[in-house]
């Protein structure tokens, strides 16, 4: 059966280096997340207390159930905060290295810009820009390949959702100019 054997090799030239320095330790993120969750629990708890978290003649008030959930969330976050301070060993582990963070940002920032562009230019234009830009700038893929892939994918999405399935997406000036 080895006549069909064939190696598949894919390289990752921009892979994050192994020895990149750590940006932040897991313990620190753990503490920050616990603090944020604690704050969230306090805000939601306060809001539910205001809505009414006790009992009246018809049973529990609207805020009752979520109020006690905020208490549970707050307690668990407090416990997490304490646990994070106690376990020093785990705290020293790397949350993300600098090289990794750079790669994550290389996806996150374009995604953020894409959401922004969707709001003003419509989803299809934004998606064309995202795919073409990402392939060209992050993936270092030939310009014509990037533009072609972006166009084909965007057009396929448009036909699938807007034409065939009638799922309407946010649109912008370009679609307006084309009369869709």
């Amino acid at each position, binding site marked *: 059966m080895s006549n069909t054997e064939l190696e598949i090799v894919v390289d990752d030239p921009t892979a*994050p280096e192994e020895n990149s320095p750590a940006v932040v330790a897991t313990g620190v*993120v753990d503490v920050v997340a616990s603090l944020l*969750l604690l704050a969230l629990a306090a805000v939601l708890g306060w809001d*539910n207390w205001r809505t009414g978290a006790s009992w009246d003649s018809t049973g529990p008030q609207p805020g009752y159930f979520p109020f006690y959930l905020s208490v549970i969330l707050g307690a668990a976050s407090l416990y997490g905060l304490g*646990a994070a301070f106690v376990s020093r060993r785990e705290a020293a582990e790397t949350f993300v290295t600098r090289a990794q963070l750079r790669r994550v940002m290389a996806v996150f920032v374009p995604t953020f810009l894409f*959401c922004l562009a*969707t709001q003003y230019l419509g989803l299809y234009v934004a998606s064309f820009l995202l795919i073409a830009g990402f392939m060209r700038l992050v993936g270092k*893929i030939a310009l014509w390949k990037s533009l072609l892939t972006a166009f084909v994918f965007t057009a396929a999405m448009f036909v699938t959702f807007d034409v065939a399935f009638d*799922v309407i997406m946010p649109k912008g000036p370009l679609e307006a100019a084309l009369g869709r």
Partner: protein
Amino acid sequence: MEAFGLLLHGFAVLLTWKTLLLMMVGLVLGIFVGVLPGLGGPNGVAILLPLTFTMDPTSAIVMLSCIYWGALFGGAITSILFNIPGEAWSVATTFDGYPMAQQGRAAEALTAAFTSSFIGSLVAVLLITFLAPMISSFALKFGPPEFFAVYLLTFCSFVGLGREAKHKTVISMSLGLLLAGVGMDTVSGQLRMTFGSAELLRGINFLVAVIGLFGISEILLTMEERLALRGHAAGISLRVVLSVWKDLPKYWVTLLRSSVIGCWLGITPGGAIAASFMGYNLAKRFAKDQESFGKGRIEGVFAPETAAHASGTSALLPMLALGIPGSGTAAILLGGLMVWGLNPGPLLFVEHKDFVWGLIASMYLGNVVGLVLVLTTVPIFASILRVPFAAVAPMIVVSCAIGAYAIQNAMFDIWLMLGFGVVGYVFKKIGIPLAPFTLALVLGSRAEDAFRLSMIGSGGDMKVFWSNGLVGTITTLAIVLLFWPVIDRAFAGVARLVRPAKA
């Protein structure tokens, strides 16, 4: 035998060209997302969900469940050929699958994986066919207290039996329940936790959260890793398939044991991950020569794959019968049911017979079609991995955004998705499990309604949860499970005290 007649009716509903075509499309898409790095079962289903919004519910669920089967099959391809488990439950498959591929027995390993997945799913579907109608007709007698007790049992078993740190499971769960409460209160009509924002009035949609948590965060996580890979491409010839199938009866004990483990862990929220490892370890323990495991033994592929698929499939049983999903993917399918205007739970079997039996029949059919499809098309799918991630990543982002927007036609949901993407990324890295969050978000409002209705019924007396034998048993069991780690340790302590005395 009523179930059998209804099942035949289900097949009759399905056997149209349109449905079969949808099935193929779903399977191909599913294998595609299963093979791609950084995507898998729940992500694939979440991202492709919006495709189904305009279909009728039966076609939609057929396509979605086929995407799910496809993703399960696809995970095995990368585990065996590239030593990259697409999903956590495929990890155990790499132990023996990859060594087999290295020895030039890739085709054999793939056939074994696909066949055993098929067997595992089939056993679980058989279980669903006969057990689900019984459970649901039993559950029709449930009132609000019983339902709340069952929800409580689900939540408590996650906390008590989960492997993660307990407080992290509690954080994830209470956060999910809280976010489920945002927006208009269904009982009193009052606004909660909206802080005057018109966007929050609609509440936080479950599917938007899922697309962000699983889709976007997974891309961020994938980028952190080195994406280079090296592996084998293999075609499967009919001769190999037949020779593996001929040997199949020899391994019936392994297959049966793994199926049982899988079904059990799928119905209780133990999950496919635990099932695959347990299946593998037990096969190893009962084997005569344990040394040969990990060096390319075919049983090492059979055992985890059967268990993982039996578990992944039987997770749909509690979803169909009780409206409680047994896994993350089942929770997303449940979210889909609600979008199509179906109310999950025992009434489904009464009110939407066509739908339920169509779904169950599609599980049989989807598995058969899927098995044939993967066996014939493996080389094509293996080469998908050559497509650079820089081209795949932005397409996934766009699909996620389309999905998030399509649910409620709200731009705000796209931003919410992005936010959940970041939250999911951080949570995964600091070890806060996402499955309880998903489950809580989808069940939250129904759990609360059940609680409040039982409180209104009893006049605010908590004793209603022990008012009869059934509800009392479930509630007590829930509390036992919640404190299971403590109880377990206490038992172990007692046993240790007793044993030296005997010796």
